[in-house]
């Protein structure tokens, strides 16, 4: 009865007894998520990380546009060519480079000539590709005239452009972590909720199972699972299965945390109230428990992404994750297996910098999110 009257009076003049509550806060009008977003933006490192990661993802999307050379083009004239030396010749230019055979030691060497620079063109024409997979074009961000090659980060053992490969590899490395974590989060959240909400025997069995999974050494398990995939699988299938394998190991920790949260909430008074009001299990779970746990799930998932990226890189490095002809950062790094290779051709390690950068950014974002979601921890 009284509630029906309130809107008419309440819109203009707040009832006297509510004035005290309404007055101090614009905060009261802002939703929980808005507040979190505000707190998140306040932590500068996390916000900067978002920008850096966005740039990395844009690089992955525009990989073919950014790369002056096709990522899979082999070139026997450029084997282990060092990064193109930059110079100034009426504009930015690169030193021209010619390969010759060192007859005494019988290895290929390069002679650079910086007096006659090859000018770098912006938006020049290069190899043809399809932007976003649909728009055919041949424009690239930076190019040089035909016989020369712009190798920003040098070339690998087959004379392939490391920069182009790193950009292409970002497509696999930056998505496999996200998708793997997404699948793992879904599994973990579902199982954790079931376990925490129903309790009893189900809870007991699930918890023992999770303990079991957590007590396995992760890397050997990943290795074993990845090694049973046939070697001649198509790149897409392998990508999907590796993603699945990464998520299969990762969900257990999340399930345990979600269970803890759900268990805590389900004994709280508002759940008892909902139940007294006649809510079914489904309603309680989806409208009362999960929304409360969501922020926590998001944070845990975010903090799991870096571990998954590192896992993919490590597996590919060992030759059981993604395999050539697929390109990922781990596959690129597997070219730099030995000390002598790294000493002679240090630029092969440049993709490692990208891995570290991406992982640090994800970590900082995860930390920022955690602080934003739960400022008291």
């Amino acid at each position, binding site marked *: 009865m009284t509630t029906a009257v309130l809107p008419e009076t309440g819109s203009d003049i707040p009832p006297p007894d509510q004035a005290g509550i309404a007055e101090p806060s614009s905060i009261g009008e802002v939703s929980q998520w808005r507040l979190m977003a505000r707190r998140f933006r306040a932590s500068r490192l996390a916000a900067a990380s978002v920008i850096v990661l966005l740039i990395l993802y844009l690089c992955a999307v525009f990989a073919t546009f950014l790369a002056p050379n096709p990522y899979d083009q082999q070139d026997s004239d450029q084997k282990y060519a060092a990064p193109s030396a930059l110079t100034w010749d009426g504009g930015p230019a690169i030193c021209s480079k010619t390969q010759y055979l060192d007859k005494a030691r019988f290895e290929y060497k390069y002679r650079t000539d910086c007096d006659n620079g090859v000018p770098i063109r912006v938006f020049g024409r290069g190899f043809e590709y399809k932007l976003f997979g649909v728009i055919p074009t041949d424009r690239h961000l930076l190019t040089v005239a035909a016989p020369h090659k712009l190798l920003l980060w040098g070339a690998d053992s087959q004379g392939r452009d490391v920069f182009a490969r790193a950009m292409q590899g970002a497509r696999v490395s930056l998505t496999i972590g996200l998708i793997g974590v997404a699948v793992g989060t879904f599994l973990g959240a579902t199982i954790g909720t079931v376990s925490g909400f129903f309790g009893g025997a189900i809870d007991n069995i699930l918890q023992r199972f999770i303990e079991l999974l*957590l*007590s396995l050494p992760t*890397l*050997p398990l990943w*290795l074993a699972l990845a090694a*049973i995939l046939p070697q001649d699988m198509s790149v897409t299938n392998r990508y999907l299965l590796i993603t699945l394998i990464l998520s299969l190991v990762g969900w257990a920790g999340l399930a345990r945390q979600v269970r803890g949260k759900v268990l805590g909430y389900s004994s709280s008074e508002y759940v008892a109230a909902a139940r007294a009001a006649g809510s079914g299990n489904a309603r309680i779970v989806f409208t009362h428990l999960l929304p409360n746990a969501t922020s926590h799930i998001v944070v845990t998932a975010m903090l799991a992404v870096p571990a998954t990226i590192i896992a993919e890189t490590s597996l590919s490095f060992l*030759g059981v994750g993604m395999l050539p002809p697929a390109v990922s950062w781990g596959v690129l790094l597997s070219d730099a297996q030995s000390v002598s290779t790294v000493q002679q051709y240090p630029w092969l*390690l440049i993709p490692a910098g990208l891995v*570290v950068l991406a*992982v640090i950014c994800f970590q900082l974002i995860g930390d920022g999110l955690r602080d934003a979601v739960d400022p008291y921890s």
Partner: protein
Amino acid sequence: MLIVVVRRIVYMIVTIAIVSVLSFAIISAPPGSALAQKINQLQSQGGAVTQQQVEALEAQYGVNDPWFVKYVKWIGGFPHGNFGQSFTLNEPVGNLIWSRLGLSLVLSLGALVIAWGLSIPLGVFSATHRHTLPDAVITVIQFVGVAIPEFLFALVVMTLAATYLGSDVGGLFSEHFQGAAWDWSKFVNLLSHLWIPLVVISAGSTAWLTRVMRANLLDVLNQQYVQTARAKGATERVVIWRHAVRNALHPLVMTFGTTFPALISGEAIVSIVLNLPTTGPLLVNALLNKDMYLAGTIILMLSALLVIGNFVADILLAVVDPRIRLEAGRS
């Protein structure tokens, strides 16, 4: 307390049993076996392999049995110390793994000691000197330390050591000590090779634990009993080390269960890069060659190590913390 220990031991045995089934099922899943490769090898070495010989070999290794029959045969040998035969290396698995397992354990435990030894003082320093330059430096190093994949760190450290220290890196000994008898100089040589893997393996965990320690101590320092301790005139050192750190250590003991698996994983991959004779390289090769008894035994042994480690951690926790002891005794 006794009930707790007994219950934990039963859990432990059940866990190891399930792990053994799981690991074996995973490994025997892929089609094709190392035996087929062995037959190919025999054929290529000249000498036709007759159908009879193939069948005899297959019967000997039980290749055509379903996986659970193989499993029973395999596990049946364990009490006698017989872990099956490695197809690729032509040696009983038992001969291959013990020394490697020992080195894996030494490296993991060594890294554990280093990680704890460094992370506690660093974490305490970082927390008590919050917002100073050293704290910022430690924090940055932590972030990078957690972010660098171990294999990469191993590669970088090894390259730097090879370039600037000129030391022969990788492996356990320098060449001229390889077959030599044990003496002091060989031991020193061993140490000069071991520091790189130890540093690399412990780096990630040290960074992580420092972060945990710092956060824990900051939490504890805000509590009122710390204020009380200060108010009654205790010196800062006593307040920090006797009152605060003790309680902050507690979650660190609890992370033992996650630190140890990470160290064992790290040890495996670092050993591959550094070419150390531990279980890591052996496992990868066994998996790639589908040498299933070898791979299965290694996975089982590593898991058993972890389960035992967790058991020890649980008991330690119960010993350290009376609350846990009481609660476990009641339920």
